[in-house]
């Protein structure tokens, strides 16, 4: 991108890279601007370019004249291998496992256990937080709201918390070790979704219901702390330099 090889046009197929025309400011023209957005743009890209150059000079990787791997054979062989594996698994399982064709559903009788689809179990579990609904002694030990209202409010709180996370942290980390705290929050959230799902099917779980209820809230905290500790330990020896240039190419926080 420097002045020297600017006119060094490369013909490596349709890469989508538009060569500079007469209207495009040259690099030295950009550099001569002293203020405002053009200067900022220059500094922004020059810094990224400079770091890229330094890393390339340090590295032992042999540069090639193409911008990516060709679709054939590299990409397609990989995709075909993965596709063959899953098609093979489907054929093998359907050929060897006993067929499950249950009785037709009876539309006139409601089953005793009603569950949503599995990916909504976490929300269903949030409807079963009756023990957390506070009873106020001020109003004679009555609950302030019905348990079902409390469950719906719990859904609002959890969905609201998830919606707020992108505003609290933009996610400029490329790997969990770069931001152990937020990685721990994420692992805790995933664990919470899992334990809530298990809570929602508590009548099928082979364990004490009260223990299950406590574990629903304790396990995410434990997993979050574990994640934080492990990632904090992994920070030592992690090569930030290799990843710093990716930060530059993304919008600053």
């Amino acid at each position, binding site marked *: 991108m420097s002045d020297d090889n600017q006119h060094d046009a490369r013909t490596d197929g349709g890469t989508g890279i538009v060569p500079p025309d007469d209207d495009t400011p040259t690099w030295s023209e950009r550099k001569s601007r002293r203020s405002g957005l053009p200067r900022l743009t220059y500094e922004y890209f020059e810094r990224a370019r400079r770091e890229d150059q330094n890393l390339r000079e340090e590295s032992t990787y042999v540069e090639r004249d193409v911008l990516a791997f060709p679709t054939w054979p590299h990409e397609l062989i990989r995709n075909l291998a993965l596709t063959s594996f899953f098609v093979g698994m489907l054929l093998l399982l359907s050929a060897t*496992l006993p067929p499950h064709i249950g009785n037709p559903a009876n539309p006139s009788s409601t089953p005793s256990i009603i569950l949503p689809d599995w990916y909504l179990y976490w929300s269903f579990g949030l409807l079963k937080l009756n023990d957390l609904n506070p009873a106020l002694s001020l109003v004679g030990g009555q609950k302030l709201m019905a348990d079902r209202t409390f469950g719906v409010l719990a859904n609002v709180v959890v969905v609201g918390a998830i919606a707020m996370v992108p505003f609290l942290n933009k996610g400029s980390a490329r790997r969990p070790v770069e931001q152990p705290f937020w990685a721990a929050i994420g692992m805790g959230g995933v664990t919470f979704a899992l334990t809530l799902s298990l809570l929602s099917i508590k009548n099928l779980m082979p364990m004490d219901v009260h223990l299950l209820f406590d574990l629903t809230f304790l396990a995410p905290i434990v997993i979050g702390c574990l994640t934080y500790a492990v990632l904090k330990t992994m920070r030592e020896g992690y090569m930030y330099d290799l990843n710093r240039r990716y930060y530059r190419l993304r919008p600053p926080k």
Partner: protein
Amino acid sequence: MADEFMKGFGLFSVASFLWLISASWYRTPSFESTRQLIAAPPEDPGTMFDSLGIFLGDLMFWTAILGAFTFWVVVPAGRQARSALVVDE
């Protein structure tokens, strides 16, 4: 070491897949049961093939567990112990 991992993993996945097939035929009373794959096999398997299937299922179950244990724990531990004990190597 990666080779040992792959041997153990291969044994584990293939054997547990074969166990899954056997257990789904012989240890699953119903697909609405809460004891799928772990229920006791039928007392009196009708044919020789059924008893063979039950036996192979058990065999694969222990192959998966002991195979993984062997290649992930026993063999590496043996190598570590040997390199710690044998000095002139």
